[in-house]
């Protein structure tokens, strides 16, 4: 089920009402919220509910075993087995096709061609997110950052529908404590929740989908048909699109959770004002950045084992992060590219004399980040090559319609403007009467809904990850 659909508009008010009606009876509430979340997940394909249930039960058994294990070595082994099984599950569904094809190519190239069992495996929506959350659960329990939960609590944690299919990646240590007692029905951030939902809908439906439809999809499908001005606009437009698409989803998810009394971690913090790759990854998909930092980079030794090892750790971590985004060479190389740029930034620190002015650092960083995201968006390396080649061919601006240019400028502009006035405006909106906010949310839905074409709202980009 997608958030911006009629099905969800019917689903959510009912679930919200029953959720608060049952909140004081926690046992019932938990059973209800698990059932609701599985209905939400199963709306796309019911059979994947078994996968979600299997991952929940498997990791719950591991977490309980870790808590019972008496020595550290045994705990370590249980974590290894649990994480390996999680990654194997993820690998089977997400990377099987990619690896069999690539291995087949390699075997062919050395004259050892043999038929590998080809299978087009359907990718369960959100699998990358809930397997990562399952990993944080067992690792946090092993580290002592979270206590092992009951099976019901673990099921609520992994299936809770606002974060189920596209994050944010909520750690066990952040979510499970919120299940220890009923949410306080007198302290709900209603205004913040509603305004986040409205903002998310505007970002996703009005901006991201319009940019995709009118600019990004046509250009990236056939870059050879467009000239330099259109390609440049499409590159910046793509960055604006993917930001609005994903952060829009996150805003809606956080807003829905707030209305249900739960808090999710921050996932975006104006990433397009970043002045370096390192800063970008502290502002973009922050919950994934934290995951790769705390569960991959630091366990590998982080920056504590010398300069060369630090560069290796950066490259390895960011390459894995790229691979997480999709079973393709483009996403993997995009990850590596980010690792290389972060290593260069690390190396150059203090070696280039006086720091460049902030606007120069921003201009360089944002263009290098955009170049990387063009690689990420390309279907394959040859398409990326065509895109780059076409960038230098000149040609006419055929797609520079004012609403499109305005959308791109607004997305960048809002992140570059001073924050205080925007924050004040946000607080002012959040403090309005909930009835007024309800009218505002309805108006937003009706207006952005009018821009939706007959085929409906396209899925969020991050659903495929």
């Amino acid at each position, binding site marked *: 089920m997608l958030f911006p659909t009629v099905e969800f508009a019917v689903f959510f008010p009912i679930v919200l009402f029953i959720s608060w009606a049952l909140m004081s009876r926690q046992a019932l509430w938990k059973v209800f919220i698990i059932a609701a979340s599985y209905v939400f997940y199963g709306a796309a394909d019911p059979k994947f509910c078994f996968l979600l249930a299997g991952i929940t039960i498997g990791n719950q058994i591991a977490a309980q075993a870790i808590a019972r294990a008496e020595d550290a070595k045994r705990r370590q082994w249980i974590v290894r087995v649990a994480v390996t099984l999680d990654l194997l599950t993820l690998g089977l569904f997400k990377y099987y096709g990619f690896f069999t094809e690539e291995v087949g190519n390699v075997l062919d190239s050395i004259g050892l061609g043999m038929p590998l069992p080809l299978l087009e495996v359907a990718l369960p929506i959100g699998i990358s997110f809930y397997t990562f959350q399952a990993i944080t659960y067992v690792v946090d329990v092993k580290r002592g950052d979270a206590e092992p939960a009951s099976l019901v609590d673990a099921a609520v944690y992994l299936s809770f529908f606002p974060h189920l299919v596209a994050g944010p990646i909520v750690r066990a240590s952040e979510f499970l404590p919120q299940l220890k007692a009923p949410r306080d029905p*007198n302290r709900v951030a209603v205004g913040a929740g509603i305004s986040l939902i409205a903002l998310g809908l505007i970002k996703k439906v009005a901006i991201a989908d319009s940019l995709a439809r009118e600019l990004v999809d046509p250009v990236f499908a056939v870059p050879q048909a467009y000239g330099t001005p259109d390609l440049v606009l499409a590159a910046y437009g793509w960055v604006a699109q993917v930001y609005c698409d994903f952060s829009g989803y996150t805003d809606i998810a956080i807003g829905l959770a707030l209305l249900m009394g739960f808090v999710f971690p921050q996932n975006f913090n104006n990433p397009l004002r970043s002045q370096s790759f390192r800063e970008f990854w502290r502002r973009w998909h922050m919950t994934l950045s934290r995951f790769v930092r705390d569960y991959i980079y630091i366990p590998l030794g982080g920056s504590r084992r010398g300069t060369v090892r630090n560069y290796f750790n950066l490259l390895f971590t960011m390459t894995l992060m790229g691979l997480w985004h999709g079973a393709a060479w483009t996403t993997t190389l995009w990850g590596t590219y980010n690792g290389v740029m972060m290593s260069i930034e690390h190396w150059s620190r203090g070696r280039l004399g006086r720091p460049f002015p902030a606007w120069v650092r921003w201009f360089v960083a944002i263009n290098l980040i955009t170049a990387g995201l063009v690689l990420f968006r390309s279907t394959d390396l040859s398409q990326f090559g065509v895109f780059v080649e076409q960038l230098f061919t000149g040609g006419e601006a055929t797609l520079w319609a004012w609403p499109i240019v305005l959308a791109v400028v607004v997305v960048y502009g809002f992140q570059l403007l001073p924050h205080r006035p925007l924050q004040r405006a946000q607080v002012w909106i959040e403090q309005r009467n909930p009835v007024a906010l309800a009218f505002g949310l309805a108006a937003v839905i009706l207006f952005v809904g009018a821009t939706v074409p007959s085929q409906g709202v396209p899925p969020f980009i991050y659903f495929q990850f």
Partner: protein
Amino acid sequence: MPPSTHADDSEMSRFDRPEVRKLSAWWAVAAISITAALLVVFSGGSVKKQAEELRPGIGRDIIAAVGEPTKWIADATPLARVQADITDGLSSETELDEGAFADAAVGSADEIPPVTPSSFDPAAIGLNPSGDLKLDKLLVTGDSMSTPMDAVLARRLSPQGVEVVRDPKLGSAISDDEFLDWGQVSSAQVRDEDPDAVVMLIGAGEGLPMEAPGGGEVECCNPEYAAVYANRVRQIMQTYLGDPDKRLYWLSVPRSRNDRQWEISQLVNESVRVAAVPWLSQIRLIDLVSIFTPGGVYRDSMEIDGRDTIVRDSDGLHLTEAGAELAADAVLERMAQDFAIDAESE
């Protein structure tokens, strides 16, 4: 990314700030209920419409049950019209006005219909096609089946100076004119683009009940249904074939993994074949069944350049990128017999 400290970068306490107003949970329920009520009053009809577009099942039944009263409420107030008028200019849709299926007059032929020269494909009677027509603009359309083949064709033909207009209508079906009327869509496409040739691949969502000529509905799949479907297809074909130099490449739907789907696809393919008869001098029927599922046997993968390659998506229906390349090959090979293009060009 990586600072090596564990600061609270999740900002879990950001909603505890004093300026974040905290209210009773029932205000949240009330606000969402008011929003829902407003949506019902202003746009209640869309719930029922949405139900019609869902796959059959309990979810669809629930939404349909909710959609009945919401449509009644929306129809009973003038506010839905007001909302439509206010937001009219925001629509990203092409304006559809002429050519609806319902407006088309399908004649009852009491006389024996004459066979005309336009019923013959020159290649089929042993003549060499001229292959010298000029292709300036190609329209690639259909439902989701037409993607990603549309992009493949655009990549192949754009370097040859052909403008390729890609207009997939995702989720549409010729049998579902409530969602999108392909009679109107084809009219609007010709009006707006005036293509020299059209490539059409549609069939993923067919099989819905249609209005019968004498009133009432016909259900899939029987000869009555096939006749209604073929008449709709014929109307679309006539729209695309404005003058004798225009060409239409209509691709059949290959067998899907799902048996029921295949039953419908067979009817669709046969209806298209029958509908095309009057204009076989201009219409090229591209047989994807023999390419992807010879003998009507479904397969996920097939040998391409000596390698077993996956050609069908995980849904067992749509084509993968490799499958789309094969379909595009078939189209271009046939197109090169009509137009001065290089079918081999990458």
